[in-house]
């Protein structure tokens, strides 16, 4: 059984990769869904493991986080409905920058980090993302897809 993260060959029946600790069977589920559509183009959506779809607005900067009216934080994509609170999404967690067909995600110094394909991105350093990638905010994993 090959680990989809580090390509290490693990024995059948192993639950976690011996090399990198990635979940072997469950991880493959998410990945498969994420690569279902690998088209490109400006219209993008995030889909959750439960099949929820969140449209990414067609603007240059899209703020992702958790709505908090008390501190007047209203992100463009509010992850509260997907369990953002329990899954450690910060109020202003990350920003998606879009320029033509290119797309990057920038972690805004969130408490629990932003991950692209299971690798944590440096805060405030935009990282290129493309349809087919898994983007994780805290513990909330979403698949980026072309709409």
């Amino acid at each position: 059984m090959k680990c989809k993260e580090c390509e290490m060959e693990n024995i059948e029946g192993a639950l976690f990769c011996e090399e990198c600790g990635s979940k072997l069977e469950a991880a493959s589920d998410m990945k498969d869904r994420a690569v279902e559509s690998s088209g490109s183009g400006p219209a993008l959506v995030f889909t959750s493991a439960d099949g929820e779809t969140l449209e990414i607005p067609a603007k240059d900067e899209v703020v992702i986080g958790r709505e908090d009216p008390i501190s007047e934080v209203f992100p463009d994509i509010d992850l509260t409905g997907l369990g953002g609170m329990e899954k450690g999404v910060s109020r202003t967690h990350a920003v998606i920058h879009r320029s033509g067909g290119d797309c990057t995600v920038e972690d805004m110094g969130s408490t629990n980090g932003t991950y692209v394909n299971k690798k944590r991105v440096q805060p405030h350093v935009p990282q290129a993302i493309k349809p087919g990638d898994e983007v994780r905010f805290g513990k909330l994993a979403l698949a980026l897809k072309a709409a």
Partner: protein
Amino acid sequence: MKNELNIKCILSKDALPAGSAEQAVYALVNIKPAGEACLTSMPANFGLVLDRSGSMDGEKMDHLKEAVGYVMDHLNDDDLVSITIFDDQVETLIPSQAARNREEIKSKLGTIIARGGTQISDGLKAGLEEVKKGLSKERVNRILLLTDGQTWDDEPACTELADQAGSQGIAITSIGIGQDWNEKLLLELSDRSRGNSHWIENPLAILDAFQQEVRSMQSVAATNLRVTARMGQGVKAVKVYSTVPMICDRTIAAVNSGNIVANLGALDGIKGQSLLIEARVQPAQTGTFRLGQVEVTYDVPSKAIKGQSIKTDLSVTFTDDAAAAAKVNAEVMNLVEKVSAFKLQTRALTEVMTGNIDGATKKLQSAATVLLDLGEDELAAAAETEIRSLKKTGALTTAGAKKLEYGTRKLTQQMTKAMVK
């Protein structure tokens, strides 16, 4: 006759895919008392070995004296207690005696003055001698070693004493306070003697750790606990970990020719003990298949029970039903993930020691991801901090290394608020 203990074995999968390649199976062995009946407290034979080096002065020493006072108030009259204090010199403050002399013993605590350096082996040796005076199978024999400093080139002597203690059924609970002590050594002393280990950042938590120790001694339900796993044909055990009371790799000591004999010391009747066994199974045709047998043996000295044994067979079904073979037991899965985080962290620290900073960084990165998946946000953040430290300085911070070592070992247990702070 009703057994005093209950063993429950849970496999990672009840069904395995038939006819495929060799595969991994995990078995979780949970051992607990069968009821309240056997929680009759065994008398203790308790040796406190306490660091009084100069750096203990002030808050640490104040809280230590308070905690020893608590111990004296909560030991039973017939328990034996000794107090050995050490810096680079040793003093047997209280030779082994009945705890009923508590007022007199407590009055001597006032005479402890912090001074000098730290020489753990001399203190441990003298403390062990005191505990040996009252050594008995009818008692819970235990040493509590507390230090806040690095010892001076006597680590091998310390580990030898821990082996000696372990072989005589004396478990060492080691406690490190602050950041300037050797966590590898303290963990090794407890592993070798089948004891426990704690890291305390805040001196306030000394009392919590001592309270926990007294409670654990007074709730010992069985001694001489041993788990033997005899594997069937085509099955071999490859690894074994203790997961409760804390995660500890017992593979080297316990796995031999594909079978397991793990000596686990005393059973805390409240927490119990758990082992996680990883085995390899050869391919087989559809049908029921016997993996092997797990036997737990133990003594209950208060009931004159010796070498009592409970056996359980482990079997799985080999099936062509892919959906059934894909089902994984959630409890075992969670424990395997915790052990996986512990292993990644251990390997990262080993890579640091051998100078492979790049390898260490990768392992810590993986550990951080697993920890986050487990909901251990604080530990994941600690791993991230250490990754930054590694990239910047090529070394871990002393506090960070301790936090990861102790944090991942204790993923299976609850700690008091003061102890995690």
